């Protein structure tokens, strides 16, 4: 089973059913049926084949959620190549780093991103074959547009199997994640990884083709890809939100389109609780919500349950490297096993490893390790073993600290990495510090996250300046905004004469956290 077989099956089973709706999009890209999407992506694949893109090749997608992004995605898979998801929210340098590392044969880049990234003083270096949508322009680039391909390419070449050389074990998607190693990692996931994870996940949740979902996360994160692949597996409709900028608008989208499901990270649920009229205006067809990307507190889960009587709350824990789910807990157990992120998926082997690398008894804290058919093929950089993400037994080492109870329920107790989760974004301090260090007056910089009721964590930057005039917060913020989106820019800049150091002379983020919160902590090892 290959992922694109699901789309073909949908096009046969439900040709005229709406596969995807894009709120706020303009014609002709507001909605698409399964048959139309299948046809569009057949044409994309036919075109890619004429450009010698095929099995073993990579095609980067630098697209925000849109119908063309789906056409490119499925077209790339159908020709037997792998997609490379590029987070458009990352800064220019990060995106360039991803393109350099993944070395795609072609890139599909949306007009807005092209305007932003290819017309700057230091334009993005792209492969020769550049694909886009009508209206895209940038100096020196002549992209092949989706519109041109659709009107000049016949899909009929696909009456015979296109990709006989592709097996379920081949890489289908490369998803870049800030991961747990402090730099973006290209996580290589096979067709089989997703098939295994989605099949096992749906055994537990029991969704059908009658289910539909409102998507608020970008497709370039595994959370978005999971929703896309899941609903293609089911033959269910996806509604893509116009964005999470206005939570009340998201609530209105849930009501207007009558989706049965919604998947979000804790930030999304807090926003819906605090900044929309969810409680007094429950979407009538909403059947379930799925919380991923970190647990809501028990208080918040109760608030959510109270606000949405009759709506099942499901919770999943995972990582991009696990395609992505590792554990799951449903509404029946959520308030019985308080604080748990659930049990291992049926085909996932979950272990808690002690410092001697051996599984610890129930109740003891150790590192979460997961094995199974959903675990990634590796990182594009090839150093997943050297980094310790995949161990000698082939297990994924999550870097998360947790304990299991007697029944196999997992309770997370912390992260062994420095990752900051703010407003649903995963942010590595090093990524932000690297930007700060580019400011000519910054001598030392350290970024930490402190608890925040709304954002989850609030990012603070501690800075030591080189001698000279003071530098204003506004200037530091402007400097960051040149390379980072607002959500990844520190909320406060704190200038100090000295920053606390560790024994090895590095700036101590632990000591800074103590300084910021007044609570001493022991650094995770």
């Amino acid at each position, binding site marked *: 089973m290959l992922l694109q077989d699901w789309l073909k099956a949908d096009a046969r089973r439900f040709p005229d059913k709406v596969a995807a709706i894009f709120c706020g999009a303009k014609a002709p890209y507001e909605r698409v049926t399964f048959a139309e999407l299948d046809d569009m992506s057949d044409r994309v694949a036919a075109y890619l084949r004429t450009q010698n893109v095929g099995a073993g090749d990579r095609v980067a997608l630098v697209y925000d959620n849109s119908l063309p992004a789906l056409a490119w995605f499925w077209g790339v898979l159908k020709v037997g190549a792998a997609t490379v998801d590029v987070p458009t929210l990352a800064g220019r340098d990060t995106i360039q780093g991803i393109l350099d590392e993944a070395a795609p044969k072609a890139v599909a880049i949306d007009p*807005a991103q092209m305007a932003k990234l290819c017309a700057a003083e230091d334009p993005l270096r792209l492969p020769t074959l550049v694909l886009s949508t009508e209206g895209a322009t940038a100096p020196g680039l002549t992209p092949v547009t989706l519109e041109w391909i659709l009107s000049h390419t016949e899909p009929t070449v696909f009456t015979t199997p296109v990709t006989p050389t592709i097996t379920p074990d081949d890489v289908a998607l490369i998803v870049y994640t800030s991961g747990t190693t402090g730099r973006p990692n290209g996580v290589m996931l096979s067709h089989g990884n997703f098939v295994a994870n989605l099949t096992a996940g749906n055994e537990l949740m029991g969704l059908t083709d009658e289910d539909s979902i409102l998507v608020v996360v970008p497709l370039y994160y595994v959370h978005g890809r999971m929703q896309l692949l899941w609903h293609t597996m089911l033959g269910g409709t996806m509604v893509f939100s116009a*964005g*999470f*900028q*206005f*939570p*009340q*608008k998201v609530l209105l989208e849930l009501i207007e389109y009558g989706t049965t499901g919604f998947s979000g990270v804790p930030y999304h649920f807090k*926003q819906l609780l605090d*900044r*929309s*009229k969810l409680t007094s205006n429950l979407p009538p067809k909403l059947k379930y919500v799925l919380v991923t990307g970190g647990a809501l507190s028990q208080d918040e889960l109760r608030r959510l349950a109270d606000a949405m009587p009759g709506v099942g709350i499901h919770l999943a824990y995972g990582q991009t490297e696990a395609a992505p789910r590792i554990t799951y807990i449903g509404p029946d157990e959520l308030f019985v096993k308080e604080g748990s992120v659930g049990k291992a998926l049926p085909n996932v082997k979950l272990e808690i490893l002690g410092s001697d690398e051996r599984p610890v008894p129930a109740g003891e804290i150790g590192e979460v390790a997961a094995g199974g058919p959903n675990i990634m093929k590796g990182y594009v950089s090839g150093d997943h073993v050297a980094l310790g993400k995949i161990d000698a037994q082939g297990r994924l080492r999550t870097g998360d600290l947790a304990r299991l109870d007697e029944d196999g329920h997992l309770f997370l107790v912390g992260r062994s990495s420095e990752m900051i989760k*703010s*407003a649903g974004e995963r942010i590595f301090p090093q990524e932000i510090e690297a930007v700060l260090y580019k400011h000519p007056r910054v001598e030392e910089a350290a970024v930490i996250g402190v608890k925040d009721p*709304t*954002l989850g964590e609030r990012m603070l930057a501690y800075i030591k300046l080189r001698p000279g005039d003071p530098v204003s917060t*506004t*200037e530091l*913020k*402007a*400097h960051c*905004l*040149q390379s980072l*989106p*607002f*959500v990844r820019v520190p909320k406060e800049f704190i200038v100090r004469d000295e920053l606390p150091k560790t024994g090895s002379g590095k700036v101590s983020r632990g000591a800074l956290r103590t300084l910021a919160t007044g609570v001493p902590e022991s650094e995770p090892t």
Partner: protein
Amino acid sequence: MSIQQTLLEYITKELAPGNPELDAESTLAGVVDSTAVMELVVWIEGQYGFDVEIDEITPDNFGSVKALAAYIESHKQR
């Protein structure tokens, strides 16, 4: 200083410093994300002394500096 000027000054200083092209007519889509909208709401409530209602935080009211200034103006006078 007019509301529009004050607002533009706040946005260009706090939410989008280093964005010289921003003016009253420019769209705020892509400039203010959901976290920036929250900061903006808190600032408006503090600065102009009225509560911004949840269903008024919409693309219509928050779409541009001009639209937002008009929204503030109409609520300030209530």
